[in-house]
């Protein structure tokens, strides 16, 4: 179990959203509900694990000068694979997340892990790191999605438990910034107490 910490690090210590503050665009844009946040997180995790594996394999033979374009091409390939898979099997999800699926290419988390971890570590560690960071990202997005869904429409994962209309602003753009800001405050408080 010595490699287990590669997975757990991604959750708290290297949490991509609240600690590293990477990949803000999908974090803010797709968390209108808990389900959307979860789906976006899983889509990113798919690309993250596969690109980490391939990059850790090819890193020793890629010349240092062209490594960034090579990494971007690898990531873009897996994003295209993901796009085609989603169009075939989950067209409704693809429709909701829309532009933010192709934009996984420029998500700084994916390139950041390729450059900061996968090119210096073995295949197994890189896959576990991808899993950990991916899970951390998914968890953060789901939490933000849950908070926004409760405040915005009085529901969780589509299950409505507060009758009537919610506060519409939390489903729209301003709510994304406000919820993320206040959640970050709570996370800072928690880290300061530890």
């Amino acid at each position: 179990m010595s490699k287990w910490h590669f997975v757990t690090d991604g959750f708290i210590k290297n949490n991509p959203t609240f600690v590293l503050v990477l990949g803000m665009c999908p974090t803010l844009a797709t968390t209108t509900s808990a389900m959307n946040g979860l789906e976006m997180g899983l889509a990113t995790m798919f690309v993250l694990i596969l690109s980490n594996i391939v990059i850790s394999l090819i890193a020793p033979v890629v010349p240092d000068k062209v490594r960034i374009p090579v990494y971007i091409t690898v990531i873009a390939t897996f994003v295209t694979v993901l796009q085609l898979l989603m169009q075939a099997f989950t067209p409704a999800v693809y429709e909701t997340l829309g532009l933010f699926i192709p934009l996984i290419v420029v998500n700084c988390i994916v390139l950041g892990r390729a450059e900061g971890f996968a090119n210096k570590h073995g295949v197994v560690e890189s896959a576990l790191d991808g899993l950990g960071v991916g899970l951390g990202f998914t968890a953060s997005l789901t939490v933000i999605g849950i908070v926004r869904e409760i405040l915005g429409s009085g529901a969780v994962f589509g299950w409505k438990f507060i009758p009537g209309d919610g506060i519409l602003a939390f489903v729209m753009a301003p709510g994304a910034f406000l919820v993320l800001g206040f959640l970050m405050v709570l996370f800072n408080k928690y880290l300061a107490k530890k």
Partner: protein
Amino acid sequence: MEYFLIIISAIFVNNILLAQFLGICPFLGVSNKLSTATGMSGAVCFVITLATVVTYLLNQYLLVPFGLEFLQTIAFILVIAALVQMVEIVLKKISPSLYQALGIFLPLITTNCAVLGVAITVVTKQFAFGGAAPHMLNLAQAVVYAFATSLGYGLAMCLFAGLREHLAGNDVPKAFKGLPIALITVGIMAMAFLGFSGIV
């Protein structure tokens, strides 16, 4: 008239930062000072407009005729990366002063999702302005849309940098310091920009 509607819609109603959430990372990263914010906005404006023209033509005359639209993501990101590199080299030769002003921001722009976002939006989304039937943008409209969008980026960026310079001098509770208070400020700004919705 349609061009006018495109411009108003791209700058205010569908502001790329505050309503579409594209390019947030550099927005939070370099908005500490007004001078860096203007530099970054200038560089983004330049690259978005140029990248949109190139990717639009690439899509229209290479990908679509051969039925290769599924390669859009890969092709566009490579074109943008190469373009940014070229702009950097050309600027260095032709206008060293402009290079000095924009130089440090250019490499950052490749991974700015606003550039890829606008390029993809322009070739995949149908637009409808002023009651006209939804249609794809032609090249001239695409350029206007890209330029106006990047102006909206600059506007939001500079407004926010101004606010943030004031925030720096204020006594903020410890847990709110840095990003959290910045995000909450953007949230309030976004609420103000919601007031523009319904104009177009």
